[in-house]
C-alpha cells in the first residue's frame, strides 16, 4: 500500500533517550513572535520563542492558560486563529523554513510532515461524517487513492490506532464513540500520512484518567517504535514527568526554562518552574488534616435559624458504614436515579445512580470520586435538591428533604449551597461582584441595604478578594477570582454544607492550589462541611477526610482518605489510582539503546472498561 507501508522520513539512529545536541533537531524554532489583532492594536502572544525538538523523542511544552502554548502549537501547523499572525522568527521543520511559506506549501506540509492531535475529541470530529470518511478524506488529500482502497487503508489505520472492530467503527458517526475512541480516531487522522512530527495539543485533558493513560501509552508506543516525534503541549506537569524526555516551560508567551525532564524537575532554575512544581496537587499534604479538632457550629448566622451546637464529632469516621454516633449533617440512603430517556427503551438503561448510601458528619469532608458517567455529579445535584431521586432518601440534619420543593427547598438552600465547576458560566458576566454576592441575601430578604454592603465586604474578605473588587463586573475577573466570588456567593447565606462540584478543575494549577487552600481555611473558620465532587484523585486527597469511589452509578469503595490511597481494597479503585499521572516517574527506559526495526507497534487497545459507546448527545 501506498502510505501505510513506508514508515516515513526519520533519521534511522534517532534514539528515545534525551540527548540535547541540537544537531538532531527535527524542529527548530527561533525568535518566533506571534501577535493577535485586539481592541488596542496587536497583542503579542509569543515574544520570540526558541525551541528545539529532537527527533524520536517526546518534548513537552508546559504552561498555564495564557502562556502561549496553544498559540505555539497552532503556529507550528500554520493554523493560527483569525487575527493571529507570525510577525517574525523562524520555524524550520526538517530543514524546511515554514515562516512565510505559501498556503500551498503549508497544505503539503500539514499531514505529511507535521500532524496535529487536537485538544477536545468531543468537538474535533465532523458530527455528520462517518469515522471512516474522516480518515479517507485525509488520505485522499495527499495521495491519489481510489475510494475503495482508501477505505481499506482507513480501517487499517484505525486498527493501528487501537480501535477494536475498526471496520464496523468506520461506518459509525463520532457521537457513537466514547471520548477515548474519538481521540484514537484523531490520532489515526493525524498519523495517516506518516508525519515526522506530531503536535499533540492537550490530547487528554478532556478524558478520564484511565482513558488518558491508555491514550498516552499509545502515543508513547508510536515514538518508541520510531515512527514519529511528539511535541506534547500540556498544562499537566505530572504528565510531563511521566511521558516527556525534554520539557519547555512557558509563561506569558516566553520560554522560561528548557531542558531534560529529570533536570528541570529536580533542579528547576527558574522561579516560575519552582512555583509550578510546588503547586501540583497531591504532592504536598495539607498540614493538620488528621488532627483537626471537632469543629463546633457556625458563629453568628445572620438572620438564620438559631445556631445549633453540634457536639464534637470525629471528623473522619471509620469506613463509613454503620450509623453515625451523632446525627450526621448529611445522610444519603439507597439513592437511585434513572434519567428518563427518549425512546421507549429507556427503562433498559442502567441507572445513573444505583443504591448509594453514605453519611457525612458535621465538619467532615467527603470526596466523591469517579470517572465521567459515574454518577458523582448526579448525587451532588440530588443532595442540593436540583434533581429528584428515583428512589432513596436525602436527610439534612436528620430531616428528610427528598423531593422537597417550594418553601421547603428554599429553606433547605439556606443550609446547603453549591459551588459549580465552571466559574465562567456560573456567574452572570454583566453583574457586578456585589450584585452577585448579595443576590442570595436579596432573594431571601435578609439584611437591609446598608448592612448588605457591610456583609459583602466581610464575604469578600473571607475569600481574600480586595474590597474594591465589589464594583467590578464578573467579566473583568480571572478564573480564580471568579471562583472566589462564587464561593463568597455560596457563603452569603452562611450554609453548613457546601456541595462543591469540580470546583477547581477549570483552573490552572497555581490557582487550583490557592482555591484549595482557601476552601481548607474556610472549613476551619466557618465550620463548613464539604461534599467534594471531583474526577481528580489528587485534589480530593488534599481536602477530604473520606473518599467515596463511584463507578457506573455504584459506590465501589468508601474509606478514609489515608487508607484508600495507601491500600485500596477494590480492583477498580486500584486501577483508578494507578492511572493517576505522576506515578511512572521515569520508570521508562524502553527502547533507548536498541533502535528497533520499524515493526508495527502492538497497538495498545482500549481495555474492557473503556466504554465503547459514548453518551449520545
Amino acid at each position, binding site marked *: 500500500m501506498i502510505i501505510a507501508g513506508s514508515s516515513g522520513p526519520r533519521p534511522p539512529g534517532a534514539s528515545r533517550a534525551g540527548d540535547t545536541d541540537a544537531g538532531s533537531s527535527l524542529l527548530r524554532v527561533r525568535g518566533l513572535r506571534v501577535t493577535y489583532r485586539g481592541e488596542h492594536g496587536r497583542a503579542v502572544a509569543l515574544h520570540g520563542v526558541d525551541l528545539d525538538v529532537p527527533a524520536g523523542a517526546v518534548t513537552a511544552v508546559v504552561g498555564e492558560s495564557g502562556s502561549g502554548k496553544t498559540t505555539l502549537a497552532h503556529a507550528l501547523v500554520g493554523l493560527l486563529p483569525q487575527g493571529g499572525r507570525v510577525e517574525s522568527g523562524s520555524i524550520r521543520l526538517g530543514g524546511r523554513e515554514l515562516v512565510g511559506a505559501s498556503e500551498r506549501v503549508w497544505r503539503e506540509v500539514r499531514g505529511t510532515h507535521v500532524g496535529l492531535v487536537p485538544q477536545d475529541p468531543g468537538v474535533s470530529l465532523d458530527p455528520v461524517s462517518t469515522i471512516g470518511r474522516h480518515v479517507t478524506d485525509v488520505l485522499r488529500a495527499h495521495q491519489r487513492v481510489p475510494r475503495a482502497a482508501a477505505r481499506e487503508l482507513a480501517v487499517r489505520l484505525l486498527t493501528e490506532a487501537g480501535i477494536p472492530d475498526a471496520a464496523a467503527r468506520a461506518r459509525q458517526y463520532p457521537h457513537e464513540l466514547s471520548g477515548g475512541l474519538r481521540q484514537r480516531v484523531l490520532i489515526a487522522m493525524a498519523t495517516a500520512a506518516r508525519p515526522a512530527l506530531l503536535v499533540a495539543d492537550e490530547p487528554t485533558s478532556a478524558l478520564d484518567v484511565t482513558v488518558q493513560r491508555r491514550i498516552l501509552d499509545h502515543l508513547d508506543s508510536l515514538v518508541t517504535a520510531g515512527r514519529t516525534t511528539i511535541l506534547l503541549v500540556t498544562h499537566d506537569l505530572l504528565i510531563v514527568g511521566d511521558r516527556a524526555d525534554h520539557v519547555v516551560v512557558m509563561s506569558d508567551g516566553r520560554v522560561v526554562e528548557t531542558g531534560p525532564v529529570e533536570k528541570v524537575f529536580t533542579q528547576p532554575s527558574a522561579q516560575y518552574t519552582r512555583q509550578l512544581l510546588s503547586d501540583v496537587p497531591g504532592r504536598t499534604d495539607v498540614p493538620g488534616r488528621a488532627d483537626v479538632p471537632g469543629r463546633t457550629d457556625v458563629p453568628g448566622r445572620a438572620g438564620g435559624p438559631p445556631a445549633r451546637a453540634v457536639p464534637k464529632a470525629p471528623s473522619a469516621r471509620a469506613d463509613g458504614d454503620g450509623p453515625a454516633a451523632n446525627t450526621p449533617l448529611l445522610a444519603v440512603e439507597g439513592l437511585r436515579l434513572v434519567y428518563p430517556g427518549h425512546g*421507549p*427503551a429507556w427503562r433498559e438503561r442502567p441507572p445513573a445512580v444505583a443504591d448509594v448510601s453514605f453519611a457525612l458528619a458535621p465538619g467532615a469532608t467527603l470526596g466523591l470520586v469517579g470517572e465521567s458517567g459515574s454518577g458523582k455529579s448526579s448525587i451532588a445535584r440530588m443532595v442540593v435538591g436540583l434533581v429528584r431521586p428515583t428512589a432513596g432518601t436525602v436527610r439534612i440534619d436528620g430531616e428528610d428533604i427528598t423531593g422537597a420543593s417550594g418553601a421547603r427547598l428554599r429553606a433547605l438552600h439556606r443550609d446547603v449551597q453549591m459551588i459549580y465547576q465552571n466559574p465562567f458560566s456560573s456567574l452572570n458576566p454583566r453583574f457586578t461582584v456585589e450584585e452577585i454576592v448579595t443576590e442570595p441575601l436579596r432573594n431571601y430578604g435578609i439584611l437591609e441595604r446598608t448592612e448588605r454592603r457591610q456583609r459583602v465586604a466581610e464575604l469578600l474578605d473571607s475569600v481574600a478578594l480586595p474590597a474594591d473588587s465589589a464594583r467590578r463586573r464578573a467579566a473583568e475577573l480571572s478564573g480564580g477570582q471568579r471562583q472566589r466570588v462564587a464561593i463568597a456567593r455560596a457563603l452569603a447565606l452562611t450554609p453548613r454544607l457546601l456541595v462543591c462540584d469540580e470546583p477547581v478543575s477549570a483552573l490552572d494549577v497555581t490557582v487550583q492550589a490557592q482555591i484549595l487552600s482557601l476552601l481548607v481555611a474556610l472549613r476551619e473558620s466557618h465550620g463548613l462541611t464539604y461534599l467534594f465532587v471531583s474526577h481528580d484523585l489528587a485534589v480530593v486527597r488534599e481536602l477530604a477526610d473520606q473518599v467515596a469511589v463511584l463507578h457506573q452509578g455504584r459506590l465501589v469503595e468508601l474509606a478514609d482518605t489515608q487508607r484508600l490511597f495507601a491500600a485500596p481494597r477494590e480492583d477498580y479503585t486500584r486501577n483508578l489510582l494507578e492511572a493517576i499521572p505522576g506515578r511512572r516517574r521515569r520508570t521508562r527506559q524502553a527502547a533507548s539503546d536498541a533502535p528497533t526495526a520499524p515493526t508495527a507497534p502492538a497497538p495498545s487497545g482500549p481495555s474492557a472498561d473503556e466504554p465503547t*459507546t459514548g453518551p449520545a448527545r
Partner: protein
Amino acid sequence: MAEHEAGPGAAPAVRRMAAARRMAAVRRIAVGRQAALARRIAQAVAVVWAAFTVTFLTVRLLPGDPVALMLTGSNGFSTPTAEQIAEARSRLGYDHPLVVQYLRALADATHGDFGASIQTGRPVSSMISEALPSTLRLGAAALVLALVVGTAVGLLANLAPLPFLRQALRSLPAAGISLPSFWVGLMLLQLLSFRWHVFPTLDGSGPRQLVLPACTLALPGAALMAQVVGRSLHDSLHRPWADTLRAAGLAPGRLLVAHGLRGAALPALTVLGLLVGNLIGGAVVVETVFSRPGMGLITQAAVGAQDLPVVQGVVVVAAIGFAATNLVVDLLYPVLDPRLRGGPAAVGVAG
C-alpha cells in the same frame, strides 16, 4: 446496556437470554418509531383541521353577506328581492345554525367536497383540481431553482478566490430578499418579454412560459437559502473539527464540499420547509402579475368576492401541502443528521 453480561465466557443460556433481551429492545424501538410516526401524522391532520375551522369561522364572522353579494354580482347591477335572497340562502344551506353548517361542511370536506363556488356555481373541487397542476409546476420549479441557486451562491460566498468577490456574494441575499416580487416580475416581463422577446408573454403553458414566473417566485427563497447555506458553511469553517481536517492537509474547497455542505443540509431543509409555506402566498402575486391560471389566481378572485367555499377549499389544500411538507422535513432530519437517529444504532452496535 445489558449486553456486557454475555461475554465470551458466559454460559449459553445466559447468552441466549441476552440475545432475546436485545431482540426485545430492538422490537420495542421499532414499535416506538411507528408510534412516533403515527403521532406526527396525527399532528399534521390536526393542523389541516385547525386551518379549516379557523377559515370557516373568520369568513362567517366577517361583515357582509356573501349570498346577497352573489345575487348582486360583483359589479352591483341587479338588486335582488328579499325572497330571492331567502330562497338562495336555504338552497345553499345558509339558513341552518352555524354549528350545523360547520359540521356539514366538515363532513363534506373530508370527502373532498367543498360545495359549489358562489360566483360560478361550479364545484370547488373541480376548480381546484384544474388549477392545481399549473401551480404545482410553478412551485416545484421555483423550489428547485431556489435550492440550486441559493446553495451555489452560499458556496461561492465562501469559496470565491477574491475577498471582495466573497464580500459581494455575501451581501447578495440581503438585496434579493428586499426586492418585492411583483416588481421583479413586472421588470422581467418588461425587459425579457416585451422589449427583447426572449420569453413569450403571458398565456400558454409550455415550459418556456414557466421560466419568468418561476424565477420571480424563486427569488426570495433563493436569497434566504443563500443566506442560510452561506452562514452555515462559514460557521463550519470555524469549528474545531475544521481545524482538525485542515491540520491533516485538507484543502478548504474539499472541506466545504465534503463536510460543510452536509452540515448545511439541516438548516437548508428547515428553510425549504418554510419556503413551501411562502410559495403559496407568493403564487397569488406571481400568478396575478403573469396572469397565469392557477391556485393563486383562484384565491385572489375568491377572496375578492367573498366566495367562501372556494376560499375554504384553497386554504385546506394549502394546509395539506404545508403539513405534508413539514412531515417530510421532520422525517428527513434524522436522515441528514446521524445524531438525531438514536435508538437502534446505539442498541445494535454497542454490544
